[in-house]
């Protein structure tokens, strides 16, 4: 049972983020995951160059430690 608790604690350390990427200039923005988004979804225009912005990646990464 300790194993179950340890796994749950480990899981809580991760958060899901999405990486938006501009298909023209390659600018990347890391944001919180919004439900309904998926990799390949067009989410608007790049603020820097006006190119197409798509969801390039959705992944779980370790939460940064609170200082």
């Amino acid at each position, binding site marked *: 049972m300790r*194993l*179950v608790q340890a*796994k749950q604690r480990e899981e809580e350390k991760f958060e*899901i983020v999405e990486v938006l990427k501009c*298909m023209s200039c390659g600018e990347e923005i890391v944001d919180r995951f919004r439900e309904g988004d998926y990799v390949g979804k067009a989410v608007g225009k790049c603020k820097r160059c006006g190119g197409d912005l798509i969801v390039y990646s959705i992944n*779980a990464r370790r939460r940064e430690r609170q200082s």
Partner: protein
Amino acid sequence: MFNAFQQSDITSWIAWLILFTILVLFSRSLEYYRLLLEVKKFIDQMNYSVNAAFNDVFNTLKSIARRFGVDAADPFLRGKMLRVADSVVISPTDLDPFGIVEKYKHILTSADRYLLEEVSSIFKGKAPREVVENARTLLEILRVMTLYLKMVKHYYITARRYKSYMLLFQLRYLLPQILEAIETLKRALTAFAKGVPVGDSVGPLTAFRLYLRFKKVTPFREIVEDTVAAETEFEGRRVIIVKARGPGSNVGRLDDALEKIFNLYDPKAVITVDAALKLEGEISGSVAEGIGVAIGGIGVEKFNIEKIATSRRVPLYAVVIKMSEEEAITALRDYLDRAVELAVRTVERIILRYTNKGDTVVVVGVGNTVGVGQ
């Protein structure tokens, strides 16, 4: 005095002998009851996890129904979920193994359709395809969790009925692994409920990233049911990229797609990219390349792809990204996402090294495409 000492010594020896005899005769029984208690504790934990998963899935389906304006009454939804969780898929007989792959394919396709129909009927056709597909996977996970619990209970009750120490002993030492599998499946529900890519999505993700990098000739189109393909160009080669249709939870019909492509083109190489279970001690996210078809499952698609490629003498290259079972079915970890970039470079290198300008190459992104569109 000497006699008294001798007397007490003899009594103590007899007492020890009786105690020793009791321990020898009943130690197995004592151990049996200890194991019984331990197994019961594991089963209680499993019961708790499966019930929690059932409630999670119930609430998810209920909220989806509400979102699409469908009135799914609680008893109806619970009844449907219990029916699906209890459903069985019976493998075909292998008394005559000839044609068994076709039979497997037929049964698995039918099972897939049955489950999709059951889920569709909850939302009365109002929910989009990807939402229905994700909900289908939630119910599938629930079905597997229920099956694990049923099996464990079966052996526990059998061991108790026949007072089988050995059966209980084996069960006790298998239970931590089974409990871990149940907990992992429970955590997988979160990823599929939210529709985020999982570790197993690295194949379709590699396919999609290759599509972004290569010169596009045609966009992705559904060439067979649940499977899309796009034609691209890379360093003078025509590259056909194949993956399951996303972003719903779907693994596609990759063998059927490949058969169709082989009828239309004359490929000089087939490259499959998939997640592979790492061995303990191997590093998650390491990329390996090799020969053969990188594809999991019970082997139907693997058999068919090997058959098509062998009949045309087309070499099969494989690229695999190593990960644990847990990583394969839970939300895609960032280091696996980085491994996808490495897999993309590996595919490019294989294309450049083993094919010539003017050749046609097929790249297949194998795996569940949940959260990965096209």
